[in-house]
């Protein structure tokens, strides 16, 4: 069995005396204190931020409060398929689907959420709803928390609230294009237009 001898570091008289080392350490501490408090801005190395006046930028994939994305005409992209509420492990999403009125270009093609409620207190911010959504209608890319409140009702976000929250880029749409029935870009043709 091989053995190694570890050599202890030799101590100088200065180390042995302690006081010079303490002085050295305190000089470092107070030097940093002086720089951070009164020194030039670019040399400051504080690890804290002045919350809540200042907030830290969250990473790009941070899952913040939900939002419902819009279509070009401002209506929700959500088609009330209930995939998100099916996937939700906390069961915090409640949706009531409804059909577009007769005469609407979307009538027959799609449905929309008459009621869309997320209980943000129940939500565990896992992001499964965003994964499940086939329409890119629900997103958590807002970059903000749910605002704090003393009242439970303030955490029940209804459809209008969810539609009013913008994404991190300040817009209400998503980068994924969508061709709605009735739009010129929609490739569908019906019997009236011929094949």
């Amino acid at each position: 069995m091989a053995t190694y001898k570890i050599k202890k570091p030799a101590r100088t008289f200065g180390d042995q005396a302690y006081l010079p080392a303490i002085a050295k350490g305190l000089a470092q501490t107070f030097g940093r204190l002086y720089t951070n408090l009164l020194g030039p801005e670019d040399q400051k190395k504080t690890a804290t931020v002045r919350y809540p006046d200042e907030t830290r930028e969250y990473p790009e994939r941070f899952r913040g409060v939900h939002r419902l994305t819009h279509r070009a005409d401002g209506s929700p992209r959500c088609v009330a398929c209930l995939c998100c509420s099916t996937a939700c492990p906390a069961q915090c999403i409640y949706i009531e689907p409804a059909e577009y009125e007769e005469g609407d270009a979307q009538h027959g093609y799609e449905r929309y959420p008459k009621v869309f409620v997320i209980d943000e207190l129940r939500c565990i911010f896992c992001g499964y709803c965003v994964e499940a959504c086939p329409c890119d209608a629900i997103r958590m890319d807002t970059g903000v928390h749910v605002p704090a409140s003393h009242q439970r009702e303030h955490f029940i976000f209804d459809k209008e609230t969810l539609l009013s929250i913008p994404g991190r880029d300040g817009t209400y749409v998503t980068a994924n294009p969508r061709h709605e029935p009735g739009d010129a870009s929609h490739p569908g043709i019906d019997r009236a237009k011929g094949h």
Partner: protein
Amino acid sequence: MPVFKLDGVEIPFEPGETIIRAAWKKGTEIPHYCWHPGLSIAANCRMCLVEIKSARPMALPILAWDEKKKDYVETTKNKLQPACQIEAAEGMEVVSKGAAVEKAQGAVQEFLLLNHPVDCPICDQAGECKLQDYWLAHQKKLKRKDTEPVHKPKAVRFGPTIVYDAERCIMCTRCIRFCDEVVGDHVLDMRERGNRNEITVSPGRELDHDYTLMTEHVCPVGALTSKDFRFKARVWFLRSTPSVCTGCATGCNTWVDYDPRYQRVYRLRPRDNEAVNKFWMCDDGMMSYKRFHEDRILTGRARQDGRVVEVPRQAAIEGAVKLLKTASKLAIVLSAQASNEDNFVAARLGSALQEKGALGAKKLYLAALGGWKADKILRNADNNPNRVGAVMVAGGAGLASLEDLVKAVDRREVDAILSLGWAASEGVEQLASLANVPHVNLSSNIGPLTQVATLVVPVASVAESSGAFTNAQGVVQTFKKAVSAPMGITSAWETLLSIASASGVDLSMKQLSDVRGALATHSAPTSVGDTAAPAE
């Protein structure tokens, strides 16, 4: 019984039966869209193609790529045949698995999905769609077609109950065949050809016969949707409980589909029973679930100084005990809408109270709905599910009608009434006399009888309780509790038992099994057999 072999498993069949039907009877499913056990054979979906081994198989000359020769070579392959059309024969060897069949099934799947919109998230069939099931089972590949699918009419109104989506339709013609063969009304047909194919309603007509919701039920995909169920729920949230339709005396077997989270029933589906309803149900029967949630009585109701006030259920039960205790000439009204158990306990309680009272005469009456349009398919002229059962409970003798009861009350032969259920063919005006004597009514819904009662005790509906109905043929059919009744409400027989124990009457019954045991000894069963299916 002769047998044939399906994938090495012996399957018995009756002469003349097709392969798919014999396999279905045994519980083995051969993938299919257009075949339905209750309809004729169309053999148009080609999903049930199987290989039939024989000494001289039907061979097709084909060109196959030979890897060694780096060229196509002439060879043969066994022609596949539709299992829904080929009659089984003794000693036949059928292969429904294996490379050749799976390739054909995958190809059929791909073909059916060529122009399909794949809008599963907004399709009500999603979760119980054969296209989804078979895609997972037999295809599991992406579509190779990269051009825009053919677009066809969507959300076409077929009638007051059904909406049609031609893009989702696979043209299996089940709905057409159902209307033709079962209803005998050729109201649906097919127009155009190939990928422009679509189902249409006959000119000048609407899909408006009495069995329109069954066309939605037989549709294997999401092409036909029921206006009532459309967008209401996702099927994967629903649970099913075996039950019996309350619509009429036929007693069609049903599945009650309910959402356990909200304890709410969303639809009724027919449950296969060859002896009673085969595979079908009528529209009115399928819509009878509405009664489970509409016009419900959820608290006790007491008439005080000509006004009806709501009282707690427990207070209503105590009030009922008081009213019934003082009665000396009590009349019991059984209900043709109530289960055998409810009627039995009501009759027993009545006779027990009579024995204690001064008068021993048994006064049993029957409340029932007045009947509806009958047909030769399923609908019975008597729209009460349990008239036979109520009569059987009363000892087989005919029961007096409510009209007789009104007369008896007017002649002061009755000084108190205990009635079951809400249903009566008579209107409130005709029954007005019943309000002149203390009248305890046990009901789940608002109806003529509840309007003329002094005291109404809320009880559970059919979906909220277990029991049995005896249909017009005399078949006793049990139904099971699907959802919980709100606010501690119990079924009528349980409520009656608590009234009995509070009145100091011992009926020596505590549980459903006790009631059923007593019921069985009380009357010789007229049943042909209990046809309740086991839970799914």
